[in-house]
């Protein structure tokens, strides 16, 4: 069974998406773009679709067709290449290209599709869209309304009660408002309104006009007659518009835009968000009229609307978002890519039809990180937050002291680096570890979370295969607020926590160094230089005192000082070992390397 692709067949741009692992994914075309211009051109035998067709338009005006969607369902025909084409045939060429892009991406044939149409499309227009699909070699499983697809993309069909949804769709060249009622898997269009000649291009034009008139005032040069300058202005205007969605002002600088008396003239202007809003305010505000009309036609008040969805690239403009919010008194749903939600919704509908959506098991994630306490009171995370469950993870640890008979497993939950700041989920001991030097025993700790969020923690001595398990069921008892609070606390205390963790690390290092030095002295026995031995012992004593006083800077300094003499001793140990060539000892060292550095605190 193949995939059913979702297609947003737009007036200016089209977009194709597919359900992948339960999530809709927009497919990039062969030029690496996420949307494809709805333009078709004929050049001799050659047929061009998308950006290529758009780029050659001026050289081939008579054989280039754009905005064919406006003719769908009519008897009108377009002439190109000395042939008359129906709107279905032209749309089919766009659909074929999208189909091919999807096939390239999926690596398999695509035969079925869900295509979206505006809510106001009549039967003839819908039938024409379906026919276009057929001509393109697609079995159109369903034609769905664009606003419905948007609602699907936001998962609004999953609500239990009947809801009224307003979809505000402001694209590149058209504006649509639709009011839908949905509930129990049923969608009903209550009313539609709009302006099919309003969109992002109009806002760009306002910026261009402003720049041209300002430049004329400043320099006395009319740029509108210079095609190249106008092209540069157009690109800059579009970029400025996009910048102003995230910034309060933007710089437009076009050096060498023109010449005056043989010298170059540059255009350098600042455009503020406020100025941009001034320039376009009447256009922005004009979108409210269709919103009010749609409400009136549906016999609804703005307070009757349960959800508001923003669709189309122009809804990224903050003024528009505020405008809609103010008019309807509701925070609208807005995605990262409002120009892709319709195709994504169509892909979800496709997934419903193949059963992929039903098969989907909603998997939970761990709301907070899980781990254990290790040497120095540090929390070592085994399963980070937001990991999809069920899952399991294991890590090997070792002991912190010679002949340590048992390890304490302190199971923690939370985002703070130090154990004491996190929530304790449980405690247990793994006992009867055979006597061995520090760092030699290998204790494997395994976390296993099942689909219900129940955590099993197992500690196993890999030497003896002895193990101990704890099952924690209280994991899910945290409320959303508590989880939020814990995550926020971790963010707030990030700096202080990191400092404390570093301090713990400094102490751990000092501790390890003392241990290693003591071991080296013992191993060397009488082969150690008496002077070196004395110096090392003195420095160790200093460091131990410093550790007791808990003075971090002093510990650091003394660790460094001890390190010098320790290195000297270590070199001797290795020389000794090389001389004696003890293979067993080498093997032991290697084994030690596999073990994680974190050690258990001796209790």
């Amino acid at each position, binding site marked *: 069974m193949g995939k059913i692709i979702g297609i947003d067949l737009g007036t200016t741009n089209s977009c194709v998406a597919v359900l*992948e*692992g339960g999530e809709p994914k927009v497919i990039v075309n062969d*030029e*690496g773009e996420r949307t494809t211009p709805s333009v078709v*051109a004929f050049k001799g035998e050659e047929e*061009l679709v998308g950006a*290529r*067709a758009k*780029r*050659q*338009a*001026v*050289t081939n005006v008579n054989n280039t067709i754009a905005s064919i969607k406006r003719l769908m369902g009519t008897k009108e025909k377009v002439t190109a290449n000395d042939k008359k084409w129906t709107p279905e045939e032209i749309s089919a060429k766009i659909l074929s290209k999208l189909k091919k892009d999807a096939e390239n*991406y999926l*690596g398999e044939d695509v035969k079925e599709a869900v295509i979206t149409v505006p809510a106001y499309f009549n039967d003839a227009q819908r039938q024409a869209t379906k026919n276009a699909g057929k001509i393109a070699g697609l079995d159109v499983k369903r034609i769905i309304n664009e606003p419905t697809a948007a609602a699907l993309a936001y998962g609004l069909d999953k609500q239990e009660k009947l809801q009224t949804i307003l979809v505000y769709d402001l694209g590149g060249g058209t504006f649509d408002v639709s009011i839908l009622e949905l509930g129990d898997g049923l969608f009903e269009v209550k009313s539609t309104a709009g302006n099919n000649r309003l969109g992002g291009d109009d806002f760009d034009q306002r910026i261009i006009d402003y720049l041209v008139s300002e430049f004329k005032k400043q320099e006395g040069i009319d740029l509108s007659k210079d*095609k*190249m300058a106008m*092209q*540069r202005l157009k690109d800059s205007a579009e970029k400025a518009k996009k910048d102003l969605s995230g910034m309060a002002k933007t710089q437009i600088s076009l*050096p*060498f835009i023109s010449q005056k008396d043989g010298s*170059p003239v540059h255009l350098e202007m600042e455009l503020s968000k406020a100025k941009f809003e001034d320039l376009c305010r009447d256009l922005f505000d004009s979108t409210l009229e269709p919103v009010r009309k749609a409400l009136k036609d549906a016999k609804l008040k703005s307070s009757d609307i349960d959800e508001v969805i923003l669709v189309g690239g122009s809804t990224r403009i903050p003024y528009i978002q505020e405008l809609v919010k103010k008019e309807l008194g509701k925070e609208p749903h807005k995605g990262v890519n409002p120009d892709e939600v319709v195709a994504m919704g169509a892909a979800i509908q496709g997934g419903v039809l193949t059963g992929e959506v039903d*098969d989907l098991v909603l998997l939970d994630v761990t709301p907070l990180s899980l781990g254990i306490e290790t040497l120095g009171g540090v929390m070592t995370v085994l399963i980070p937050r937001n990991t999809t469950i069920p899952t399991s993870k294991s890590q090997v640890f070792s002991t912190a002291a010679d002949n340590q008979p048992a390890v304490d497993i302190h199971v923690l939950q939370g985002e703070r680096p130090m154990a004491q700041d996190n929530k304790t989920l449980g405690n247990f001991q793994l006992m009867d570890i055979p006597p061995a030097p520090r760092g030699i025993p290998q204790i494997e700790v395994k976390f296993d979370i099942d689909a219900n969020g129940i955590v099993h923690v197992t500690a196993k001595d890999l030497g003896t295969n002895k193990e101990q398990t704890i099952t924690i069921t209280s994991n899910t008892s945290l409320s959303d607020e508590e989880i939020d609070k814990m995550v926020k606390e971790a963010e707030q205390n990030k700096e202080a926590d990191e400092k404390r963790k570093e301090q713990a690390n400094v102490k751990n290092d000092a501790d390890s160094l003392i241990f290693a030095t003591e071991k080296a002295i013992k191993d060397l026995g009488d082969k150690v230089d008496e002077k070196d031995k004395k110096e090392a012992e003195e420095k160790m004593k200093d460091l131990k005192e410093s550790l007791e006083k808990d003075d971090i800077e002093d510990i650091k300094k003394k660790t460094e000082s001890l390190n010098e003499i320790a290195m000297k001793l270590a070199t001797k140990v290795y020389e000794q070992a090389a001389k004696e060539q003890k293979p067993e000892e080498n093997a032991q060292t290697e084994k030690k390397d596999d073990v994680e550095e974190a050690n258990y605190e001796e209790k």
Partner: protein
Amino acid sequence: MEKEFVKKETQEEQNIELPKKKEKKKNKFEIENEKLKEENQILNEKCLRISAELQNVKKRNAEEISRLLKYDGETFIKKILPTIDNFERAILLDDANLEDEVSKFLSGFKMIYSNLKNILEESEIKEIPCVGLPFDPNTMEAVLTDHEENMEKGMVMEVLQKGYTYKEKVIRHAMVKVND
């Protein structure tokens, strides 16, 4: 072995207990068995499908990442291109008279520009050749047309803004004037 033994025993036990209902009981087990087999098949199928989907997603992800890595820095390069255009615009103003201050200044500009160009070429960023070639919508965007008797129709007359490729990918289309 042990399991089998236990199984037999239970069956026998049941046989003893309900000898008359043997047929019916067996049927019930058979039905149950068939139901379980069917369920098992569905689950197996689902499991296979999910595994296959996971593998496919992984494959596509890997392809996408390698594609992204290949064109690493593309966004940055695209942002740099207008600056290169402006260098060229500045250099174009030179009247090549080395005596005047502007020309002296611009000769330094030219050196900076050629350094920049070298860096681009080393990074496989190349200018798209256009003038005198047939218009190609794959690499060029026509913004103007004109008519010239001595030139074939559809040939590029002038480049208004240079186009660039990064490795094999067109990162900016050349804006050109085409003979009509």
